[in-house]
């Protein structure tokens, strides 16, 4: 039985905000099934008494004094923007027209 269906992959693509063609979905569903079959092995040794590790070293929040430092100018920050207007990033509509 397949661990993951074509519809599952289509749903994941939607969550990840990636448009996918029918042939991409077909292909990826097959590949994902094989890959998931291989990586599921981790469950064999992951017993309840083993604590998880997210980072190789302890990660702590880093704070500094709240003082003004030089940073990017608006022009620099916007230099890679696909579109800009009035010193701001210009983006397509988010909420719709109505």
């Amino acid at each position, binding site marked *: 039985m397949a661990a993951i269906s074509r519809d599952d992959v289509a749903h994941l693509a939607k969550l*990840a905000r990636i448009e996918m063609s029918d042939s991409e979905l077909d292909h990826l569903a097959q590949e*994902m099934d094989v890959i998931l079959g291989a*990586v599921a092995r*981790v469950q064999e040794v992951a017993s309840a008494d083993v604590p998880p590790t997210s980072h*190789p070293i302890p990660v702590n929040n880093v704070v500094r004094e709240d003082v003004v430092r030089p940073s990017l100018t608006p022009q620099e920050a916007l*230099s*890679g923007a696909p579109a800009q207007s009035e010193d701001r990033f210009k983006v397509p*509509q*988010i909420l719709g027209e109505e």
Partner: protein
Amino acid sequence: MTTIRSSASEMAAALANGETTSVELTEGHYAQIEKVDAQVHAFLYLDKEGALAQAADVDAKRKSGVELSPLAGIPLALKDVLAQKGIPTTCGSKMLEGWRPPYDSTVVSKLKAAGIVILGKTNMDEFAMGSSTENSAYGVTHNPWDLTRIPGGSGGGSSAALAAFEAPLAIGTDTGGSIRQPAAVTGTVGVKPTYGGVSRYGLIAFSSSLDQAGPCARTVLDAALLHEVIAGHDERDSTSIDAPVPQVVKAAKKLDVKGMKIGVVKELQGEGFQSGVLSKFHEGLDALVAAGAELVEVSCPTFDYALAAYYLIAPSECSSNLARFDSMRYGIRIGDDGNRSAEEVMKLTRHEGFGPEVKRRIILGTYALSSGYYDAYYGSAQKVRTLLMRDFNAAFAQADVLVSPTAPTTAFKIGANDNDPLAMYLNDIATIPVNMAGIGGMSLPCGLAEEDGLPVGFQIMSPAMRDDLMYQVGGTLEAALLSKWGGPLLDKAPVLAGN
């Protein structure tokens, strides 16, 4: 006489005694790039103007008696994953085509401050995902030993540039082996420092708990010199370790391993490893024993699960990290016709901008992190990570460093793994445990496999923040092998004809 085949250390000595200038060195390397890069395709972008300006500046400072850093004036090839102000930085992806970062990564700031001359940006698998450089959106890089073969990946551009004498130094990044495996298959040296040893600020993130930048070179000492330039604490990276940089240059010069215990990892030498890889690895072990080291066999049983855990953790982190490529603030934007919504434009842009391997990993990571599957996949992989670290701790209680072949095979043919992602992933089987535990790892050449005449890499792993130990063992092994071979391994590589 200094030539483009000299080591960076030799070039530095020639600069110091006035035998050559940085401008001359830089022009010599651009001449080689013009001669061979149409065949190798190591570079995505050349910054000739900026490089020659930096070289002239270093020459002027040297002339006026200003004290310079040891590598001042030496040319370097920079992997295209690191931001360099004003210079196109694509990460091998169509998504970032034309993007010029408004700032320098910390690694680049340190290179510039040391007077190092950045020749240009090198090719890589898209967003550093791959083991062959075939996933680049800008064409494949060819291995200088055999142009029909891969130069490793993801940092195949950097390793190929070194092996083709287009640069004596390069920078790579290593998430699961992307510095060490390219070094192995091109007969060069590559080092993944301890996680947190080199700042990740300005390094385009793939898997943040695994990514680490490091030095690539043709000799262990050159790698050590570059390591000391780029390492050190950086307040802009919250995972940067606030501790003194290990003294790797001093260690690389020791050339002594008497009494050191070398742990040979049982799980990294059996099935799946090419016979010529194993025989050259064993010649390396023999050389270390002859130099006075003691071999101990160590067992790391969880290593058999490392690859599976990695291909859950790295895609999970990638699916989160690559969410930033949303076509709003930088990079390409597709389909913004005034009618489509931001979400529709985002989906179209990510469809066009990402290649197949990146999409595969984002989908896999999205799945592994999704509710209902999190514990079974990502959660289990994190537990394997704990077990891997316990394996390493136990092994390092028995040995000063651990060793294995770097990659299971020599360089494979371009296109050989096109339709089999799992076969491609197997290339990383010996390098991945190092990233999962955050320790240091080095690859250096240990010979040419009998069956195909291609380079084999010898991996040395050292405990966290003891990077000096792998340089000490690597430097000693390199010296022993050089005297056995009668010269550098790269002297045996075919000389690339000009166009």
